[in-house]
């Protein structure tokens, strides 16, 4: 399957996001929260690791620098995305990261992990274990 379509399908399943608008909002929220914690150089590094078809979303959702507003990652995603409860924001972060992990090879996954600030890295490492292929064994 086309990787972009695979990403979208995974995101739909993992994030409970059947609408394209919902998926777009999810990616935008997570990217905006991540970008707000990175310097210009770090943002460029992440952009280079991302699959080509995700780069325009990354640049589109990179706010001016240092706008975390003191919120934690999940709270920030909740605020940016307008999610009504923290669990929804957590689900979205997990789904975006797990789907992204599936779209990257091992090397790129590790590179991205190194490029992320610590708060995000913990979430990234956790989400990698929740991708569709990683969790297939639970069905057998």
């Amino acid at each position, binding site marked *: 399957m086309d990787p972009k379509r695979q990403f979208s399908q995974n995101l739909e*399943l993992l994030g409970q996001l059947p609408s394209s608008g919902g998926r777009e909002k999810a990616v935008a929220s997570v990217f905006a929260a991540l970008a707000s914690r990175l310097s210009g150089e770090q943002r460029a590094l992440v952009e280079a690791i991302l699959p080509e078809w995700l780069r325009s979303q990354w640049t589109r959702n990179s706010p001016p620098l240092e706008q975390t507003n003191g919120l934690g990652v999940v709270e920030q995603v909740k605020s940016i995305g307008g999610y009504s409860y923290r669990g929804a924001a957590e689900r979205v972060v997990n789904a975006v990261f797990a789907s992204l992990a599936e779209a990257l090879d091992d090397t790129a996954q590790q590179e991205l992990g190194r490029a992320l600030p610590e708060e995000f890295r913990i979430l990234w490492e956790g989400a990698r274990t929740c991708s569709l292929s990683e969790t297939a064994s639970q069905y057998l």
Partner: protein
Amino acid sequence: MEKEVAAVFAATTMSPDHLTTEKLEGNLGGFGSFNLAIWAASNIIAKEILRGRQMKLDVANEAYTDVDEIARKATGFLQQYGVDPSNSSVVTAALLYWSGVNASAGIPSPNRKLGGVCRIAAGAPGARVSSLPTEKLNNKISGFAAVQAIYETLRKERLAPFDSTLLPVGLAGSPVLGHSALGEDHLFPELAKKLVPVGVEAMLKSYQSVGIKPCRFMAALFAVAATLEIVHPDGYVGEEWGPFLRTRTPDVCGQVAVEATGLPEVLHVRGSGDELKTAKVLGDLGLILKDVGAPTVVGMIMFNEVNAIIEEGPAVGVGRGGGPIVLPLHHWVAQPALILYALGHGATEEESIEMLQKSIGGYFQEDDANIAVNILAHRAQYLQRGPVTDILIKATEPKKVNALTTRIQNAYEKFKEGQALADIVSSVEDAHTAVTEKGVARIMSKVLDKDIEYVKYTNIRPGAGRRKSPMAKKFFAFDGHVDVETKVDGKIYKFDNFLAKWMPKIMMEGDKENLPGLSAVCLGVTDLLNSGACAADMVICTCMAVAFGMDPKEAAQKVGELSQYQLSIPADAVFDAADHTARIMKELA
């Protein structure tokens, strides 16, 4: 605080039963309805969620999982309050599903299906879709419609994409067919694509034939369930339908059902903004229904009202208890189901409260809806305390107190001014009607996508003239008279004696010209008819009359006579509250 205000506040709130005309105690034997037990059982499930139990069906190598144990607790509790085993099974399955438990997992063994887990936990017998009734929408039908049509089709033509007489000996039931391209890519999806629409069409036609507005959601569920009785119910399918291991025949059936019914592809959970893939919900709930036992009509009413956490609700045929009308209290279960959804999906207590409060914004009578939820939550606490009812009380108590104190203060001032009881009751009912009128115009404009400029309900009283019985002339519910006027998209519609004359006239004559007006006003009339569910206004008038010196029995009788519609059926609670008011006033004197 004036002692009259204190006495009336105390008397009306000392028991949740005092704020409604409904016989809530009668609910506890399982006769006619059992929603109070469901509210209480939700607490049992919530406690397990908060204990960190594994709220998932999985392939653990254990005889019983956490879900089995929770299902046993919940169904056992429900049955203590007279709930039929199959009814306890279907409702528990729905509550667990919305809490986040998946509908099925595994391959034998173990092969766990939520409907089956709940049926076994409940000790209910297995049954077939042909004996499953729909919920009652005045009339009702059953899954027999879908099953009969499907078997008629099977009799007339071969639906399998190959001639099964050519299958080699010994292949039946084998993975060579069931776990290969032949079964997964061809047989199962092909059968689903052909059988589900047959079931849907049969259900919709049967609904129409008996005078029920065809219910797309239920038609879809029954068609999916009937199909899964035939097609391998958790077979894998080709990856054009979705990722391997996560996509099975119920998902295919659900997708076909969405196309066959024209349901929206995405639904939403009330108050949360969460999206639901309709096909997944239909596939999961259809699978549950197939396995859940033999629920009765009441069980299916409750099942569908649990599902009313779906925001699109009545527009797609999923329950009515989520709004916009204040239903009789024994129908309400969407609220505890919503809190279970919230807790099961990681919402905090405050977030759950916000979700509930947001969902109440969808009622014509928001204050009354808030009070109704509060009544049921308090009442359910008598059976079983717990997180769900705690949250619902926290969410509704402040607004209830505000609404009641405002109404009590208003009544006090009117009595203090020396206004006659008849004038007070009349002005209170007029104010209540005005709230419904505003709510109808606002909400129905969105629902119908029309500009409803105003709705007026006037001359509301018992005795429309259709029935001769004294009871019908006394109580609004039995032969209610109401004149209606509305302006929809610039056109004025006037319907005098709506229930006895215009409503039947428009429907019997198929009068499409007046249909837009009818559609705009109908739910508001329903709301008027259901007003006794939250009878706070009339109870307050009665109690304040007592506080100002009237005999309780006389006050209850007088207000009953003066009330044009809010006391639409006889109610003991009014006298009870009045009696307590007198006793409290004596103490405060």
